C-alpha cells in the first residue's frame, strides 16, 4: 500500500497540477476506462511543434489523476517528435509505481498517456497503431 499510495501520488491526487481546460486549444482528447468509469480530458496548445500549454480534467481514481498530473508537468515544452517516443516505460518511471503485475491499475495509470498519444497523432494527421498504446 505504501508503494501504491506513497505521498507523492496522494499529493498530486489532492492538488493536481495543470488541472482545467484550455480554450482555444490545438488538441483536446478525452479517453475513458469503461471498467471503472475513469475519464481524462487532455488539452494542448502547440507552438513550433512543441507543447506550449497543457491542461487536464476528468474524474477517476488517485492513480489515474496523479499520473495525469505528473505527466502534464513533464509535457510542457516537449517536442511532438518526443511525444512519439514517450511510452509506458517512461510514464511508469515518472510516477514510480510498480504496476507490472497489476494490469487493472496499469490501465488507470496509462489513461492520460493514451489521451496524449491519440490526441497528438490525430493533430499530426498520423495513424496510431495499438502497439504504440501499449
Amino acid at each position, binding site marked *: 500500500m505504501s508503494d501504491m*499510495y506513497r505521498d507523492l501520488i496522494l499529493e498530486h491526487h489532492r492538488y493536481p497540477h495543470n488541472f482545467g481546460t484550455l480554450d482555444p486549444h490545438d488538441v483536446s482528447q478525452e479517453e475513458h476506462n469503461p471498467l*471503472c*468509469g475513469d475519464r481524462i480530458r487532455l488539452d494542448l496548445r502547440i507552438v513550433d511543434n512543441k507543447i506550449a500549454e497543457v491542461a487536464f480534467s476528468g*474524474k477517476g*481514481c488517485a*492513480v489515474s489523476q496523479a499520473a495525469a498530473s505528473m505527466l502534464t508537468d513533464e509535457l510542457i515544452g516537449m517536442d511532438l517528435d518526443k511525444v512519439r517516443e514517450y511510452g509506458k516505460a517512461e510514464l511508469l518511471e515518472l510516477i514510480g509505481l510498480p504496476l507490472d503485475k497489476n494490469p*487493472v*491499475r496499469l490501465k488507470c495509470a496509462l489513461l492520460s498517456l493514451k489521451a496524449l498519444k491519440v490526441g497528438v497523432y490525430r493533430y499530426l494527421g498520423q495513424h496510431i497503431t495499438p502497439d504504440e498504446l501499449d
Partner: protein
Amino acid sequence: MINAPFDVATTRSQFPILQLPSERPVAFLDSASSSQKPEAVISALANYYRTTNANVHRGVYQLSEQATFEFERARGRVALFINASHHREVIFTRNTTEAINLVAQAWGGTNLHADDVILLSQMEHHSNIVPWQLIAQRTGAVLRAIPIDGQGRLVLDNIDTLLQGVKMLAITHQSNVLGTINPVAELARKAHAVGALVLIDGAQSVPHMPVDVQALDIDFLAFSGHKMLGPTGVGVLWGRKSLLDAMPPFLGGGSMIKTVTIESSTYADVPARFEAGTPMIGEAIALGAAVTYLMDIGMANIATYEHQLSGYLIERLDEVHDVTWYGPPAGADRGAMAAFSMTGIHPHDIAQILDSEGVAVRAGHHCTQPLHVALDVPSSVRASCYLYTDTDDIDRLVRGLSKVKQLFG
C-alpha cells in the same frame, strides 16, 4: 450476537484456501463474483480425472458407463436441489450467461415477433440484458425495464401497465449489487396472468437460499456452479419440460442428434438436445458434490446465517463515516452483500488499499452499468459473503476502511 445454525469454524476448516499458511490470511469478501470451494468439491473433480475419466453417453466400456452414471447422478442431485419435477428438466451449460442465451435464442428465436415485449428490470446483470438485446434485434421484439426506487427495490406500482404485451419476464432473483431479493413468485403470478413466461436469473439466489422452482411457479431458472461452491465451466438451465420439448436446438453438434444426413438431422430429446458436444463432465460431477455439501448443511440454515451476516455487515458499515451503501435496509429482502461508495474516494483506490490489508472485495460496475446509471455513480465497491464468511472478515473490512480514510482523509 450471531447464532449460526451450523458451526462456521468447522465449515471454514473444510475450505483449503481459507487454511493457507499466511501472515495475513485473506478476508475473502467477493463470493458474489465466485465462491471458494470445499475439499469435497475439489476431491470430486480430481477423483473424476484420477479414477473415472472417459467420455459420457458413448462408450460401451465400463469406465464410460461409470462416467455417464456419475454425470447423470449429478443432474439428478441438481434436480432435487431446486425441486425440479424431472431430472430431464436440468440442462448443463457453461454458466448463467450461456443458460440465458440458450433461452433467448432457442425459445425467443421461435416465439418472439415484432413488437413483442421482453420485460427486464433496471437492476439486471449484463448477462440478463445483452442476450435479450441480441434476440430483440433479430425478431423486432422490444425491451422494457421495471424501474427501482431509492432503496433499490423494484417499483411495482405500475406493473400491470408494464406487463402489457409482455411475452417474457426475465428478472433476477437477487441483485448482484443491491442484494435486493425480488418477489419472484408474485411477479411470476402476474406475468402468467398476461400469458408471459418467466425466466429467473438465480446466479445470486440459488447459492444462498432455498429455491424451489415448483413453489415459485416459474418457467426457466439459470444459475452458475462456480458461485455455489462448484467449479467454473458448469452452470444450469432448468426449464419446464413442455417448454424445453418445444424448443429447437441452441448449438448443433455431437450428442444432440438422433440421425444425421448431409442434408438434415433430427434432434435428440431434452436435455441432450441442448448439450451439444462433449460436456463439462468432471465439473458437473463436482457441482453435484457441491449440491450435496450445501444440502447437508441445509439451504434454510445457510439463508438464516447469511441473513444475520447481512444485518451485521450493514450495521458495521453504518459506523464508518462517509460510506454510502446501496440497496434495501437489512431485512428479509436483502442478501449478505453490500455495494458502497465513500465520498471523494474512487472505488479502485478503496479496493486496492483493502487488498493491501488482506481484504478481497470487488470494485467496478459489477456488470450492471444501467443500475449504476440509476444509482448515479460510475462504479462502486462490493463486499459479499457466503456460508464460510465470519464476523471477523467483516470486522477486517471495517478496519480496512478506516485505513482508507486515514490515507485519503
